[in-house]
């Protein structure tokens, strides 16, 4: 298949450019580990109750920072990167060549998923070595891999959808953070939910995909029950994101 061959070639260039951009490499790779260290230093000596289990907060943070890392690598990076490339006219130029749109965007998405998988693996190993988090094996490992892949792809689609709503490159990071950070807070990524968490927050967490992604990740590390419903809800958000991206994605810096 020609489109697949082109996608493969394109991924190599996306990867080269990614590693040569110090800001994107730094934020993507260092942020999650830095947050993991900060949060566990501040709050890591507590225990929390998840379902009937009592869990060290440090283990909880290994799971939630893995989620955070995957969302950053896919949603944040893609939305911001595409907004910059649109403003610089890179997208418009690519759109004037025979490269199919699917090959170009497919390469961006696959690269982001790849970075996400590497990041999650680094975070998990770092958490295992530093905070004695148990690494999943057997069936939980398979479920974990499915969750990481589905979640990464879904957040890529949502990132592409959001990029269509970003007016210019200057607005990219603020818009993305304004969307991602509140939902991440309201999904218990940075601060775990307790018995006294207000029900409106629980409802928001139930609606948006971040909490469901995080629950899927937690089951691998915390041994909590894995639910395919979480995977399905995240996938549904991904499909919704894809439809929005198809409708609102644009190549030209000027809206036309």
């Amino acid at each position, binding site marked *: 298949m020609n489109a697949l061959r082109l996608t493969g070639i394109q991924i190599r260039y996306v990867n080269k450019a990614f590693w*040569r951009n110090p800001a994107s490499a730094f934020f993507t790779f260092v942020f999650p580990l830095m947050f993991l260290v900060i949060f566990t230093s501040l709050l890591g000596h507590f225990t929390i109750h998840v379902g009937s289990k009592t869990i060290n907060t440090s283990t909880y943070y290994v799971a939630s920072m893995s989620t955070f890392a995957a969302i950053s690598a896919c949603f944040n990076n893609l939305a911001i990167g595409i907004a910059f490339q649109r403003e610089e006219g890179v997208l418009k130029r690519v759109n004037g060549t*025979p490269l199919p749109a699917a090959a170009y965007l497919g390469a961006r998405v696959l690269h982001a998923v790849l970075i996400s998988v590497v990041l999650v693996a680094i975070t998990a190993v770092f958490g295992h070595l530093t905070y004695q988090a148990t690494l999943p094996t057997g069936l939980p490992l398979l479920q974990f891999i499915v969750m990481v892949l589905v979640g990464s792809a879904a957040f890529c689609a949502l990132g592409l959808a959001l990029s269509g709503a970003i007016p210019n490159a200057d607005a990219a990071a603020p818009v993305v953070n304004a969307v991602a950070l509140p939902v991440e807070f309201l999904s218990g990524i940075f601060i775990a939910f307790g018995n006294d968490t207000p029900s409106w927050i629980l409802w928001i967490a139930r609606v948006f995909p971040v909490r469901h992604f995080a629950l899927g990740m937690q089951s691998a590390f915390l041994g909590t029950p894995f639910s395919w419903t979480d995977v399905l809800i995240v996938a549904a958000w991904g499909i919704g994101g894809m439809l929005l991206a198809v409708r609102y994605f644009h190549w030209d810096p000027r809206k036309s």
Partner: protein
Amino acid sequence: MSDNSPAVRVRGLVKSYGGVQAVRGIDLDIHPGEIFALLGPNGAGKTTTVEILEGYRRRDGGEVTVFGFDPGRERAKMLPRVGIVLQQTGVDRYLTVTETATMYASYYPKPRSPAEVVDLVGLTEKRNSRVTTLSGGQLRRLDMAVALVGDPDLLFLDEPTTGFDPSARRDAWEVVKNLASLGKTVLLTTHYMDEAQYLADRVAVIAAGRIVAEGTPDTLGNRDHARAHIRYRVPDGTRPPDELAGTADASGFTVVTSADPVRDLHRLTGWALDNEVELDGLEVTRPSLEDVYLSLTEDAQEVKA
């Protein structure tokens, strides 16, 4: 498709933006191997027309084909055969010159060698430099390299030498001339009349969404039949013959507008020889392409207003 069918064919093209007509019925035929220049002031509809041909914009009405393909509906079939240099575009800033050319080459069915194209635009010394380190002129040349690497039959050049120094412009012109000698077709838009004069086989002037004149650079607007200006200066106190007295300009030269410069010059120089008068700085000029262009676009602005 027969050999003499045009590379680009446009009939009755119209396009509006929010009720304002930007293009009001344009017809064009551009033939294979031809360098065709589209001239016109900003906002005249040049870029809109070119971007419709490139398939970036949708037309409201009229017929457009590029190598027989409709850029609106059959863009994927058209794109392998065209190269596009837009007014403002970018390339990934973290790749090198050669990597950029190689990446774009991978998109085309029968690309040229990336190294050869980089050499052609004069970036060989910069081939291993990242895009971030290139100057404005070098970036523009990289734009050209990327447009050429697919070995296109038709090249769209939207103001390709803006920001070039004079020698870089000459080099770019030679690249374009060479393409035409290989049978490639070029559609050029430009603000520089010397560029159109030097490069174009044919030019069209577009103003207020319409083509107001079309021809070779030498005959545009009947330039070859236009009245000539005879300009000279005589010493103080001398009076030339009345029919050649013309009007005096600011620097003391006499300017005569002549419909028959051969006869008038003969009369003037005969008078000067008979009377032993020096004709200081004598010259005969036709309106330049720029003069014709300015008068054509001014007329169109008045009609519009």
